[in-house]
């Protein structure tokens, strides 16, 4: 079950659809950098954060949690059985964080100034800590990914045309890097987990500075813990989601022998998340809002019931855990629940103290978001086609 490059056709109808979204997104980004943020978004002074922060950044970070949760499981807690899913999860995380940064570049007003937090520190700012962690973690992810590139190209570097004179140099860099990393990788693995815990929780602390502006159903001092717990809980469902999609679209072995035991961890992790969310609601007596019928409350109910409770109950059944469709649906619900949670905290539950009126993302905002997601999927496809990421030897139906 060693990971290997896929030997498959690259241009499929699906890839062409992705390409269309990428082009549409690129046009919207062009609009953003010529007409300003206001030209393509519905953001306002009352609503400074919208789809881009809620989805591209906050959700992107949460859904990339498969990277550190699988690394912890296989490499730190020594469950080597799961090693075959660490590579695709690592790839998703590396790509996910790359696109979080790209999304940020579009969203922040002065994109060219993105380096400034490195030299202007505000230790009171939660966002400062998030930014530092994300920046370092992105580099850690690239470093963790390097051995995979090295494995494929070591001693086979063959750059085209004029660049070929650099072949031996690039090869030397790959080999030395790989050799050094072989000894030091444990540092980066642990560092990756630590950094993830830090900024996953701090993303939740972001809204704590605005106690009067976030709906009480979500505003709680436990927000950082909840963000961390949900990120950890969504890690394995993300792996299930990706693996199922990848193995079915590339017609590989469905790997149920790995996915089914993974769900057993999810029962505990999701159960813990459900417990603190319910406990917090009871302790702070915010259940009084539950039946008031506002769209915030309804959104909260959907998040709690369809996104947490339902998949948790589903996974308790052995029949569901053994079924490929069953765990896929449960994983989708859990992922949907975490996405909705981030959207709720940053968009739905946010109420400006004075201005009225709601926010709904503009077409331009959605095009950018979809375009970024399509590009991510496109690169994922390139990577699994040409690099040893997915377990290849047990292919069926070649």
């Amino acid at each position, binding site marked *: 079950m060693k990971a290997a490059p896929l030997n498959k056709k690259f241009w499929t109808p699906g890839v062409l659809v992705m390409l269309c979204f990428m082009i549409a997104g690129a046009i919207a980004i062009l609009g953003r950098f010529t*007409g300003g943020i206001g030209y393509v978004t519905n953001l306002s002074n009352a609503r400074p954060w919208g789809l881009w922060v809620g989805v591209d950044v906050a959700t992107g970070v949460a859904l990339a949690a498969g990277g550190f949760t699988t690394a912890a499981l296989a490499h730190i807690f020594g469950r080597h059985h799961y090693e075959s899913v660490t590579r695709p999860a690592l790839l998703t995380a590396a790509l996910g964080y790359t696109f979080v940064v790209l999304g940020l570049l579009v969203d922040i007003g002065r994109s060219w100034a993105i380096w400034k937090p490195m030299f202007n520190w505000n230790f009171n*700012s939660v*966002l400062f800590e998030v930014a530092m962690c994300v920046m370092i973690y992105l580099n850690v992810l690239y470093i963790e990914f390097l051995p995979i590139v*090295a494995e494929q190209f070591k001693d086979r570097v063959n750059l085209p045309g004029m660049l070929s004179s650099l072949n031996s140099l690039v090869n030397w860099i790959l080999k030395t890097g790989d050799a050094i990393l072989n000894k030091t990788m444990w540092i980066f693995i642990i560092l990756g987990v630590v950094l993830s815990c830090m900024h996953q929780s701090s993303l939740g602390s972001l809204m704590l500075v605005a*106690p009067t502006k976030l709906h009480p159903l979500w505003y709680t*001092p436990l927000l950082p813990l909840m963000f961390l717990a949900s990120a950890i809980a969504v890690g394995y469902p993300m792996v299930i989601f990706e693996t199922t999609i990848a193995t079915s679209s590339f017609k590989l072995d469905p790997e149920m022998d790995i996915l089914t035991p993974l769900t057993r961890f999810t029962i505990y992790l999701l159960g813990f998340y459900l417990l603190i969310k319910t406990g917090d609601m009871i302790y702070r007596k915010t259940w009084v809002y539950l039946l008031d019928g506002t769209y915030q409350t309804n959104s909260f109910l959907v998040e709690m019931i369809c996104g947490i409770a339902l998949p948790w109950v589903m996974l308790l059944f052995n029949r569901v855990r053994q079924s490929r469709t069953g765990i896929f649906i449960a994983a989708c619900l859990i992922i949907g629940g975490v996405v909705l949670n981030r959207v709720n905290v940053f968009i739905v539950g946010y109420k400006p103290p004075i201005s009225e009126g709601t926010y709904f993302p503009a077409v331009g905002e959605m095009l950018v978001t979809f375009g970024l997601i399509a590009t991510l999927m496109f690169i994922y496809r390139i990577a699994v086609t040409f690099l040893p990421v997915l377990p290849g030897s047990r292919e069926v139906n070649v």
Partner: protein
Amino acid sequence: MLLSRRNFFKILGAAGASTALPAGSAQAWSSKAPDDPYGCLVDLTRCVGCRKCEEECARVNELPAPERPNCQCTIFEKNRRPDDDAFTVVNRYFTGRIDNFNKPVPTYAKVQCMHCQDPACVSACIVGALTKDETGAVRYNKDKCIGCRYCMVACPFEIPAYEYDDPITPKVMKCTFCYDRISKDGGLPGCAGICPTEAITFGKRSTLLKVGKKRVKENPGIYLDHIYGEKEVGGTSWMYLSSVPFKKVKLPGLPETPSPKLSETIHHSLFSYLWSPIALFGVLAAFMSRTKKEADNPDNKGGV
């Protein structure tokens, strides 16, 4: 990938030492407000809605002239907010008060940055582009700003505005408290200096509080016994006196706790001296080294 025993104990030692730290360093949150800042007291019973402050504010801050500067009627039909072209605006409210002829009496209220004592925007700003000055002014430095707009998310008064139509160098826009003027001896903020009815009094915040309380006491039945901004979000440099409930003139009801208190307390207790990340690193390294020893299979190369 193997962790040597010696290294492992070193790490664990560091982790242990660092877990002891927060106990010693867990001082309670303390306010960073300046001792004796300036402030302004806005007396809504005196304001007549002439909008001279809007005009003067635009002039001294080199902003475009306000919309229809001489209009004191139809301009009020729409409630306005400060934006990237105006640091302050005056709104008219009918709060249900009527005069002797049964005609509704308007209340006019100027809005601008409150220059909070412990400002949420300053605590939030990722790069420290916003700072609370000794004068009381909350100042913005565009050369540090990256445009994340977290300050706008944080502000409980919905004040900072953004130049959404500038693609490359947009700025956060808000009342400067006329820093360049008030930091000089005898300098007055533009709006306070021009106001024909002396509805805006500039002075030391402590003095203004005394003035306000005296005014309330000497005019029984006129004012509410509440100086808005004395205690709201831990106190603000700009404060208001009114005869109508503040909520009715869109000054939001706010807790007395400074907005940044909870977030800073949690954040610092988690991360001061990076104790928790270091401890976590140590614990994970311990686990890793143990599982490595158990698994008789150290060759784990590239399997990341």
